[in-house]
């Protein structure tokens, strides 16, 4: 999760701020898309159509100066700038904070941000050449095909799967020789693969690991272009251990799925499935979403299973900053809840979002939804607030306060409000 480095400068004074009256927005615009809110909660924005039939973005009630034929993918950067893809006369670019980049493209998509004020990176195509563009600067080399753009945490590096060799439509044998590779900052790896899929940068963006298939049947992980010696019948997304730089990935071996590290099987256990794994921020622990048996889902931390299993699914696994706790969203018998360290919160919802740990790892908060109303849970209890729309809660850097961003609040009107509560004074 990209976070802003500057959270301490945000307004952490306890209280409620009414940022915008969306009811008013609704009256002003015949066309109002779903709003987005800045990480600091101070800004709300939405794509709107103005009376001239053009599109713009309304930010806290003010419109961007530029008008466009079309706008999509409005999102806030970690440093609270609204950005969106905008098009005029069939040409596309991205506008950040209302200002479009000078370069235009036939198409732009796949918006990425570097952490805390880092660059904005997008995928773009011109005349059949695909590139990634970072703050307006495209890769020096374009490709005939590109997919799966990823960027490093700070946004300093970008990589995508690209086509390295041309083949005619239907030439299955050329395809099987390997026509895909990874371009990192525009430069391709010197080795091609039959396929390359999910990729991960290491924390400083200097290394890249990817799922690859070297034949139709041999799956492995390639790190900086070099595949592991051993291949597997399947693999999922690799990750770097932030502490020692080793690369880990779920792999399928005889008997089931397990975790491999640097090409060797790392965990003794075999699972029916091992979908995603995550390293703790300090690299001391690794947790994974696993199915110990068919149709039962649980979390394995360093290979040890939570005793609790869920029959539907587990998603949104997250480590506490100190690496000692793990939380996730889980669905059982059709209802969602939050589970922390194997213990389930005794509440059921229609949807649950990624749980958020406090910086001191002592508290967990989460956004949930039931029957179209949104609620914030803290440590297993719902706050006495109910929203028509809400965003994930945010802890202050010292962990003493909690910011909540929501539309509607307890009132009937459609106001977007930003609340800051002291952790000892939560409305429970």
């Amino acid at each position, binding site marked *: 999760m990209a976070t802003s480095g500057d959270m301490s400068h945000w307004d952490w004074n306890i209280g409620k701020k009414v940022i915008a009256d969306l009811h008013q927005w609704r009256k002003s615009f015949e066309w109002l898309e779903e709003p987005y809110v800045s990480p600091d909660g101070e800004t709300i924005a939405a794509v709107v159509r103005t009376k001239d039939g053009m599109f713009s973005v309304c930010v806290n009630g003010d419109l961007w100066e530029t008008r466009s034929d079309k706008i999509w993918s409005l999102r806030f950067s970690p440093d609270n700038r609204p950005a969106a893809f905008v098009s005029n006369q069939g040409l596309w670019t991205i506008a950040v904070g209302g200002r479009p980049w000078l370069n235009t493209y036939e198409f732009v998509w796949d918006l990425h941000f570097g952490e805390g004020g880092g660059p904005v990176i997008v995928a773009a195509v011109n005349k059949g050449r695909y590139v990634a563009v970072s703050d307006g600067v495209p890769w020096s080399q374009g490709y005939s095909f590109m997919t799966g753009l990823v960027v490093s945490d700070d946004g300093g590096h970008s990589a995508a799967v690209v086509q390295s060799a041309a083949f005619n439509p239907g030439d299955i044998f050329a395809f099987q020789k390997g026509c895909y590779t990874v371009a990192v900052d525009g430069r391709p790896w010197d080795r091609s693969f039959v396929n390359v899929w999910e990729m991960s940068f290491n924390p400083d963006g200097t290394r890249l690991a990817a799922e690859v298939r070297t034949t139709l049947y041999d799956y492995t992980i390639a790190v900086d272009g070099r595949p592991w010696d051993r291949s597997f019948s399947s693999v999922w997304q690799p990750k770097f251990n932030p502490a020692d730089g080793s690369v880990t990935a779920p792999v399928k071996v005889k008997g089931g799925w397990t975790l491999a590290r640097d090409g060797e099987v790392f965990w003794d256990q075999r699972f*029916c499935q091992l979908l995603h794994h995550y390293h703790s921020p300090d690299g001391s622990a690794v947790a994974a979403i696993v199915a110990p*048996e*068919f*149709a039962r889902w649980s979390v394995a931390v360093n290979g040890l299973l939570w005793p609790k299993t869920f029959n539907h699914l587990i998603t949104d696994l997250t480590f506490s900053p100190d690496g000692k706790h793990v939380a996730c969203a889980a669905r059982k018998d059709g209802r969602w809840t939050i589970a922390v360290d194997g213990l389930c919160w005794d509440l059921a919802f229609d949807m649950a979002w990624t749980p958020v740990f406090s910086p001191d790892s002592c508290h967990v908060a989460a956004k949930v939804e039931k029957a179209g109303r949104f609620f914030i849970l803290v440590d297993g209890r719902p706050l006495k607030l109910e929203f028509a729309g809400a965003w994930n809660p945010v802890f202050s850097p010292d962990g003493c306060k909690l910011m909540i961003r929501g539309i509607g609040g307890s009132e009937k009107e459609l106001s977007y409000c930003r609340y800051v509560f002291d952790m000892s004074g939560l409305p429970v």
Partner: protein
Amino acid sequence: MHAVFNFVRGPMAGIAFAVFIIGCLYQMASMWRLARKKDAVVFHYFSLFYALRSIIHWMVPFAALNMRRHPVMTGVTFVFHLCLFAVPFFLSSHAILFKESWDVSWAWLPDGIADIMTLAVMGACLFFLGRRIFLREVRYLTTVSDVLILFCVALPFFSGFWAGQQWPGFPVMTLVHMISGEILLMLIPFTRLRHMLFFPVIRGYMGSEFGAVRRARDW
């Protein structure tokens, strides 16, 4: 004669029943173990309700569309299987043998009915043989073992009928009957005859998949 009889009536009968029962248990257990190991999913989709729904539909004559499309085959098949099970258990001579050996008894069929049923089994075997010879799609599928099995099924009925009628040479036929019957029993777990074991298993599993997962009928 007495030595052969004593063996066939005694140890061989015991062996035949043991091979049959243990063989069936072994087949079921090994199938179960294999399923646990490599087809674990099938257990997760098993639904008793839908399994029974399907099994019952396929145990009731003419309840499935394909049975109605082949009325003669359906009729013959049901009569055949019914008689195939009923005669060995409910023929008076057999019932008395069970009574003598294990002191358990049940109602038995009048011999005249049993005779007719025996003829029905033999007739059905002939019918099946005819299908295997004259129906192209069945002939195409037929293997030597299919014909041998048909023969193995018919023989105890044929010889039993002969012995029952006390036609010339019936003492030998009686022994042929006993031996062929015991062989047939032992063959069940190890030949295609084990379809009798797997019928409820497959039908139950497919019934569960069709009913619970695919929300459709399978008959």
